[in-house]
């Protein structure tokens, strides 16, 4: 069964006024347990509005959100429970650090869940371990950490709630190449270790191509493309027409194709591109 199902979800800002705009229009999707869903779309495509329905922060104008088959808007208690079942980590989460120590900050979520002190402690330490923050840092003020460490502390705060689904909105924004790589690797490690479902919103097509099992492309509030990474990324020309940034590899092969080189344009990783170019040059046998 799908851990998360969205049925015909629409969200309208300023409903019943002359200013009404549909930020999300009739979106349906099913996310199976343990998947990594990549969500792509440029600013204003509706992706942030969409994900804020997954834990009940926003109520849909129409449509349903189901967690393990149960509509989270059924009653107040179910909506409230959804906050803990779907952990939401917003953009630049380090701006939301506020406690005296890193430990207290990470424990904020589990404490709100009214868990025992022992359980809170176990979760804080496990989450810190997942994001690679050593014990010595836990007693420091979060404001004394480096930028990358702050970001990881904030992500640990969401992981410590042990949500069934972890939603990360642009977790690598503003980081240097090494910092980006660290975050993506820890997310992948967390997913394989815990079997959790991860939803990753990213502007980086390269990151989505590398990590995701499925991809959702939002455009003008609609689910423009939705499928396996292969299905979505093989439609490079469509992505370009939506003004999206396709991986550099795809862009290069689209340009070759335009210039009359008989190459496939559905490549999006370096390895695929190399294999395709060798095929073109008639070098398959040399592998």
């Amino acid at each position, binding site marked *: 069964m799908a851990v998360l199902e969205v049925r015909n979800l629409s969200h309208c800002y300023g409903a019943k006024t002359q200013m009404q705009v549909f930020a999300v229009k009739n979106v349906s999707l099913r996310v199976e347990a343990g998947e990594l869903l990549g969500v792509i779309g440029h*600013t204003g495509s509706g992706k942030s509005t969409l994900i804020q329905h997954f834990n009940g922060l926003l109520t849909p104008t129409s449509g349903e959100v189901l967690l393990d088959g149960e509509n989270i808007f059924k009653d107040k208690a179910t909506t409230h429970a959804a906050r803990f079942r779907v952990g939401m980590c917003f953009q630049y989460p380090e701006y939301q650090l506020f406690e005296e120590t890193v430990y207290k900050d990470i424990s904020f979520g589990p404490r709100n869940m009214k868990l025992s002190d022992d359980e809170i402690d176990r979760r804080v330490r496990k989450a810190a371990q997942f994001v690679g923050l050593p014990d010595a840092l836990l007693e420091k003020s979060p404001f004394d950490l480096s930028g990358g460490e702050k970001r990881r502390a904030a992500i640990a705060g969401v992981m410590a709630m042990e949500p069934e689904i972890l939603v990360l909105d642009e977790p690598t924004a503003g980081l240097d*190449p090494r910092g980006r790589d660290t975050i993506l690797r820890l997310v992948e490690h967390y997913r394989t270790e815990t079997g959790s479902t991860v939803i990753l919103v990213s502007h980086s097509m390269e990151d989505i191509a590398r990590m995701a099992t499925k991809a959702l492309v939002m455009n003008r509030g609609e689910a423009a493309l939705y499928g396996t990474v292969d299905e979505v990324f093989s439609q490079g020309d469509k992505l370009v027409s939506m003004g999206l*940034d396709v991986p*550099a590899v795809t*862009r*290069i092969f689209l340009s070759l194709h335009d210039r009359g*080189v008989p190459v496939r344009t559905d490549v999006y990783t370096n*390895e695929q591109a190399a294999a395709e170019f060798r095929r073109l*040059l*008639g070098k398959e046998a040399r592998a």
Partner: protein
Amino acid sequence: MDTIIQLRNVSFAYETEEEKNLAVQGVDLDVRRGEFLAVVGHNGSGKSTLAKLFNAILLPTEGHVLVEGMDTSDEEKVYEIRRRVGMVFQNPDNQIVATIVEDDVAFGPENLGVPPAEIRARVDEALRAVGMYEYRLYEPHKLSGGQKQRVAVAGIIAMRTDCVIFDESTAMIDPKGRREVLETVRKLNRELGITVVFITHFMEEAALADRVVVMDSGTIAAEGTPAQIFADTALLQRTGLELPPAAQLARTLREHGVELPDETLTPEQCADALFRAAQKAGVV
């Protein structure tokens, strides 16, 4: 070549009560007039501190920064220096001061005491140069991140600045906005001869520069053309950098026995090189 900014043995330390943190140490660097210089380096390498030393936002604790011969430590020259060297910051929302786009662009020249008719002309010219003229009567908060950054750029060139420092100005905006900003910057550099110092985490942006400076632990670890810098695998490894995506593809292709020239750093260069390889093999 003519130098616009000279750094001579520049060090800078952030001091707190307990410790002294040397962010930049003994840096010597000349920014050449008219060049597009990229500065890269991992978080904490000192590149943003360096940026703030260029136009007297920070003053060196040791050594000298000279802007067209004027020392940034000379308080009386700060106005003149800022008029020549402007800066675009990381967060597009932190540098807009007015409620209408054209008022925001006029803010700089107004403060310089430029006559109103001249301001009008400069604002229009600056907004056209960054491709935001049609948006001159918009409210800035209704613009995208990339558009806001272009308005910030217009505000600087309306002051007739010779040099613009971009301190990770593309870090917080989406890929489309990033392309818009980068295209604008390249155009100003090529067509108006404005000197550009571009601090960035994105290697594909550094690949477009005339020259790249790599910062590491507060010092200059390397300096050279993008081709020279990105050919040095050990340097990239040591300083926590990576190849631009197109160069990564070129590397994979070379591993597969496809011969490509060294300078295959941008998608355009890579597509050209592959096109020629295909021609050579007689498949086009």
